């Protein structure tokens, strides 16, 4: 009797362990399956189109009967333009906001501000898109002319969308700088601003870089909001005019979502191949983060 009970308990413990293992495995398996799936669906394109042509041709006419084009350079360029400009706008603003929250804002006001930033992170991207269409695009149109649906509008929306990521991670890394550094700096007669720029920010550097990379990933992967405001023209941006900012652009993500509903055959395959390129971008960023955070840990351990 007693022995039975012991046995039952043992099986019970074991089965819980395996259940948890299965649950943990689901996440990892999903990544593996997705990777496998997009490569399986996208790689066959390279049987007919060379990777060089795919990446560097500007000719995108995948469903043309005669001389179809499978070049996604315009979309890679589009993604790079909107992401870069989004970072140029979002990073300084985000870091400034993080400094303000970590070092200057006090008490209830700081708490409210922090909550507001959290809310910003929770707004669905389609709502950002609507905001862009009704507010940002008209302003850009009035200032720069054209339709207002262009790379600049897309970048502004993305800049706002990556703010919460940049602000919250930067703020935490500034906050977790050892208190001793701060008092040492004040003790030497440094001002608050000198302490922030010369001690706190350098000490928080790796966290801030991680924040920027995560923001970059978010910006590259964002689909709906840019789709609604960036114009979606499958051509190379016109760099002669405002460095391409007033051009209507299509990003990698927009390319997939625009055509997927009707594409078939090679055209459809090319969209999966586009997602491989996107996937490689994101993976590179992830590896970069791993590398940076690991380097910091080693540094802190010594």
């Amino acid at each position: 009797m007693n022995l039975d009970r012991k046995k039952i308990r043992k099986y019970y413990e074991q089965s819980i362990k395996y259940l948890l293992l299965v649950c943990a495995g689901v996440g990892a398996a999903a990544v593996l399956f997705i990777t496998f799936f997009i490569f399986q669906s996208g790689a066959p394109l390279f049987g007919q189109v060379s990777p060089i042509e795919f990446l560097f041709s500007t000719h995108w006419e995948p469903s043309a009967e005669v001389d179809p084009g499978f070049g996604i350079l315009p979309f890679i360029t589009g993604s790079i333009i909107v992401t870069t400009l989004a970072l140029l706008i979002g990073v300084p603003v985000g870091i400034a906001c993080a400094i303000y929250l970590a070092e200057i804002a006090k008490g209830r006001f700081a708490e409210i501000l922090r909550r507001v930033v959290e809310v910003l992170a929770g707004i669905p991207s389609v709502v950002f898109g609507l905001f862009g269409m009704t507010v940002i695009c008209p302003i850009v149109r009035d200032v720069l002319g054209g339709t207002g649906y262009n790379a600049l509008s897309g970048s502004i929306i993305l800049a706002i969308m990556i703010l919460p990521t940049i602000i919250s991670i930067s703020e935490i890394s500034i906050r977790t700088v050892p208190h001793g550094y701060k008092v040492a700096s004040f003790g030497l007669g440094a001002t608050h601003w000198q302490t922030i720029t010369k001690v706190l920010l350098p000490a928080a550097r790796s966290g801030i870089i991680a924040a920027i990379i995560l923001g970059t990933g978010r910006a590259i992967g964002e689909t709906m909001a840019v789709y609604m405001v960036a114009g979606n023209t499958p051509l190379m941006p016109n760099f002669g005019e405002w460095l391409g900012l007033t051009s209507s652009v299509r990003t990698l993500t927009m390319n997939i979502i625009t055509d997927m509903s009707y594409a078939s055959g090679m055209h459809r395959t090319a969209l999966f191949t586009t997602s491989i390129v996107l996937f490689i971008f994101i993976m590179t960023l992830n590896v970069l983060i791993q590398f940076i955070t690991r380097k910091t840990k080693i540094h802190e351990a010594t």
Partner: protein
Amino acid sequence: MKKNYKIRTEKLNLFYGDVQALVDINMNVEYNRITALIGPSGCGKSTYLRTLNRMNDLIASVKIDGTVYYDDTDIYKDYDVIELRKRIGMVFQKPNPFPMSVYDNVAYGPRVHGIRKKEELDSIVEKSIKAAAVWDEVADRLHQPALGLSGGQQQRLCIARVLAVEPDVILMDEPTSALDPISTAKIEDLLDQLKKKYTIIIVTHNMQQAGRISDYTGFFLNGILIEMGTTKDIFFNPQDKRTEDYISGRFG
């Protein structure tokens, strides 16, 4: 004739919110001497030390009244806090070098005070590290991370960092409590050197240390300065029963 003291406090009271941490502290600190502040944990000695270079200003809930004179100037009224902290340096309990090179740590102070020329910085860095008796150990690793030094070396580097801004008072908040006995001995020897040029006020938990290194000693208890005098008098001829009890190890 009234004697000139380096630092004087008159009726200094300090509150953390509603809690009073210092009560009517009157103290005179002599030029170029080492003054030790002793007392049990929470007696207010570190809090008192931090009022002397206004480090308590960093804590929002602190309220101070009374007067602190530095060279007969009221530091809470007539002194720029940046200038004050340049004149009155501070060394902390836990060695806290910045995560930068040895050189940049020492050059930090001069740089924030506007010195840019490389030769000038080089000579300040070398002079300060030598004065802090750690030159022999770091001369060949000036451009390596300060966090790679041992705890004792780090603490002497922190002293060098303070010396680099040319203070004339150095406040030390239990500077050896995180160090091993050999490093502690090195720092104590160093203090003996430094008192020729600087006025030093040191908070210490270690009574033997106060006995070894200080010229004057003040005994704090519950936010009150119970007794202050030459270290010899405090240790061998205390006037107050409580001082005697503490010195002889009956509490604390």
